[in-house]
């Protein structure tokens, strides 16, 4: 809706990325991404389709949610995160800083940088594990 131009760029990038993924068998001996499995039997769309198009779906849903308040769960970013959470040894979901994070497992390999998690929580739940203090401390000074 808003950002067709950006979507186009992403489109090109996604095409390249999927090309790389589909050519994987050709690179024998090259380390391949180890993509963790999500919860449940299958994803909301076919895996191949998702590999190529997940960004379009997320972008579309993003504008629908932000501007029109549509909050269906099928293509919701939050549900992606919930379903694809990767747990560490202590059974705590890892965040995007961890190379094992679901999105990292592919994006690091394909060297496609994403900035989603500069703002979005990269793991399920109300995450209060940040380094900031609660705001109240700052405000009580005045």
């Amino acid at each position, binding site marked *: 809706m*808003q*950002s*067709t*131009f950006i979507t186009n760029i992403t489109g090109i990038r996604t095409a390249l990325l999927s090309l790389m993924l589909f050519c994987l068998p050709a690179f024998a001996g090259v380390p391949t991404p180890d993509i963790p499995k999500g919860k449940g039997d299958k994803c909301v769309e076919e895996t191949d389709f998702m590999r190529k198009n997940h960004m379009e779906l997320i972008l579309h849903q993003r504008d629908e949610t932000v501007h029109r308040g549509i909050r269906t769960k099928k293509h919701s970013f939050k549900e992606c995160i919930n379903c694809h959470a990767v747990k560490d040894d202590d059974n705590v979901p890892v965040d995007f800083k961890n190379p094992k994070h679901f999105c990292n497992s592919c994006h690091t390999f394909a060297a496609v940088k994403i900035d989603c998690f500069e703002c979005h929580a990269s793991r399920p739940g109300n995450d209060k594990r940040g380094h900031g203090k609660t705001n109240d401390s700052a405000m009580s*000074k005045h």
Partner: protein
Amino acid sequence: MAKIHYREIEGNSINYYILLGFFAVIIAIALAATYYMEHNGHHVTGMTNQIVWGVPHVFAVFLIVAASGALNVASIASVFGKTAYKPLAPLSGLVAIALLMGGLSVLVLDLGRPDRLIVAMTNYNFKSIFAWNIFLYNGFLVIVGVYLWMMMEHRMNKYSKAVGFAAFTWRLILTTGTGSIFGFLVARQSYDAAIMAPMFILMSFSFGMAIFILILMGSYAGTGRPLGTAVLSRLKNLLGVFVAAVLLIVAIFHLTNLYATEHHGFEQFILLNGGIYTFLFWGVQILLGSLIPLFLLYSPATRESALWITISCVLVITGGLAQMYGIIIGGQAFPLNMFPGFEVSSSFFDGVVNHYSPSMPEIALGVGGVAIALIMVTIGIKVLRFLPLSLDDAIVDPHYKPATEETAESEATA
């Protein structure tokens, strides 16, 4: 009038490279400062949730406003047909483009998300004056570029007047747009005034002219090309008129504000008890930046001297920066009046004069914008024929009484 010969400067001297290197270092520092600011976030600057626009914006708006004014000389030549200014027109166009680029760079580098510039270029909110300005600035670059081409390409000379007129109109709209960025902020007592736009236009004449004179004198001194007093005295007289005009409109601005009761608080702040802002207004903007240069530009003792003209220009620029600081920062420092008749306090600095202390990275970024403009001019006059070989009186002034010796068309060395 003698035919004017334009020639690139040679630009091979040590001094030329030292100058380039100097600007390059300043730009490098500015880029490092930007990286530091963007990497850590703006909390390392003096800017806050109260003073949201800081020193970078002072420099950026100053440069953008001056850019429009720097085109004055070309406009006078082509639109008003004053042939004496014609030799200076190409340089005037170049300086205009360079100053605008410098200002815009600062503006962009200060964004919270400069990486999203593409978003700003592809998503326009046509209600936003800011978005219009993006359009106005790009248009300005194109029109002035075409104008330069018309002037510098012989075959195209015949169109230069028409394009010159377009450029003239465009830049007036552009400065109106820049002024309106502030003029439309109804929320703030300091800005909400229609007079902002004409004030910005006059400011642009004055700042642009001061910068133009400095660059002109600098490049002729540096290249050893002759620069006669005829050119200089015309320019400095114009500068004097512009400085006086700004003084006048500033007076009108404050007097009308004093007439409207709701603006008394802000007027008292700027004119009487605003601390640094009061000092900047009376001490720097009015005294140093307006009255003293006016005196220097017209006093018989100093008006002929290149040195005093230089000093006057520097003072006008200093005063201009102080004026911008007063408008941009002073306007934000003064508290918003949300509840008239009440004394207000909160954890978010309601009801208090907001504190601001500019940080080094911000200043470096602002100064970097100036360096970007200057390096563009320095390189520009080397690669293209912007500068007349000579601006000696005999060449420029139609009424000049020919002196005995001929002005030799000596190749200037830089």
